[in-house]
């Protein structure tokens, strides 16, 4: 079976006129366009020739359908299993018509072998109509632009440029944690000590201030030996950023994140007064 569905979809631009010169048929032109599958092809043949879908001339349609398959092969589009299966179905229906049947005058002559196919075609046609409708909706809505908002910007400190999202920070944290996984000091070797968020916050803030200027995010964790400490340091950083004590900047998407100490406007104001 074909993996991606329509074997000819890569060829939407291909327009090729082919003459169907069937025995009794008038010359019929079909354009090889983008068909979604065998049902699409059959519907096209029926609707284009304005045939009665409830009384499909099965021999004629079968011949045209087979011609279409030959055409696909001729232009090297390949014919997917579904198309072959439909060909077999059509030929089976056709063969049933060739079998001797009771006189046509009899009203209850049993199911028409075309019924199942007709039902599927009509049903498919409705969904195709809905698909067209959805396409119209899509076109209309592509003209409308919604905002892509980072939800919580209200109390973040003003960040000069290249704002850092929490996702960026978490990605960075994961990188650091992965490093720990591979080869930093084993956890058992860690001297046990109390760590509080507050302690960590003042430590981190001091570190950035002492660094002077923009401190790379990864450098913030150079001294953290365990996952606990790294997570703590990270939470402390988030807090410092939230409180407007530190600013995070990123020059490029997925690039290094830099931290710098923010001036403290409130305190300065107080001092001024």
């Amino acid at each position: 079976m074909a993996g991606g569905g329509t074997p000819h979809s890569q060829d939407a631009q291909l327009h090729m006129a082919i003459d169907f010169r069937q025995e009794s048929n008038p010359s019929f032109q079909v354009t090889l366009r983008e068909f979604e599958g065998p049902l699409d092809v059959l519907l096209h043949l029926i609707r284009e020739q304005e045939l009665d879908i409830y009384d499909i001339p099965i021999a004629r349609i079968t011949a045209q359908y087979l011609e279409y398959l030959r055409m696909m092969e001729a232009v090297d589009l390949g014919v997917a299993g579904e198309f072959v299966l439909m060909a077999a179905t059509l030929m089976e229906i056709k063969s049933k018509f060739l079998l001797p049947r009771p006189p046509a005058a009899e009203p209850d002559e049993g199911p028409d072998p075309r019924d199942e196919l007709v039902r599927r075609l009509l049903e498919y046609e409705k969904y195709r109509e809905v698909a067209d409708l959805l396409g119209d909706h899509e076109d209309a809505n592509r003209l409308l632009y919604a905002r892509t908002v980072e939800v919580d910007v209200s109390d973040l400190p003003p960040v000069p440029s290249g704002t850092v999202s929490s996702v960026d920070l978490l990605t960075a944290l994961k990188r650091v944690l992965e490093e720990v996984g591979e080869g930093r000091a084993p956890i058992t070797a860690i001297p046990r000590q109390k760590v509080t968020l507050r302690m960590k916050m003042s430590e981190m803030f001091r570190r950035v201030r002492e660094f002077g200027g923009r401190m790379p995010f990864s450098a913030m964790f150079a001294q953290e030996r365990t996952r606990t400490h790294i997570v703590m340091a990270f939470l402390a950083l988030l807090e410092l950023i939230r409180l407007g004590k530190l600013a995070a900047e990123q020059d490029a998407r997925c690039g290094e994140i830099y931290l710098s100490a923010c001036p403290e406007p409130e305190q300065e104001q107080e001092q001024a007064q």
Partner: protein
Amino acid sequence: MTREELRRGIECLLFVSDGPLGAREMSLALDTPEELVAEAAADLVARDPSVSGIVVQAVAGGWQMVTSPEFAVAVARFVGKRAQRLSKAALETLAIVAYNQPCTQAEVEFVRGVDSTGVLKGLIDRGLVQEAGRKEGPGRPILYQTTQEFLVYFGLNSLADLPDQAELEARLADAPERMEAAAAGGPQEGAQLPLIHVEPAAPDA
């Protein structure tokens, strides 16, 4: 809060939201009964488009703010490329899932008559279709349904915005090139055919 104030309040919330908002969410934030919020939101939808370049759209059971289509070109120039349009195959598949949800891949393929693995995967990747448990029965196949994002993407307020059986019949009959064929066939027969009628892949010949 006056109705006018309420309208402004709703605008504020829609502005800071990253997706459509329902009356309930807004009523909580604005501390105002849901019905009043819904009424004021409807005012915004009906607002004269010359008032603002930003319009409020009723979508996915709520409301969202979008730029006016009038400036699509300018906005596109500014924002850059959007995601690609959906293929015909994707639209077809969505149509089938939308009307039959939750449904299986086999059911989709039965209607389309072609393998739909890749198309379905693409729709899931784009967040328009999602898994919805498994169907009881042999093989317990995965069920699929359309998402909230599906409604937003097509600007639909709910699935009920899609045409029902009768509307669809009418649409098909109206297509000029089909008039003749439809008239020739029995219209009663056609009307009886269920739109929502998907059978598991029957043993084909």
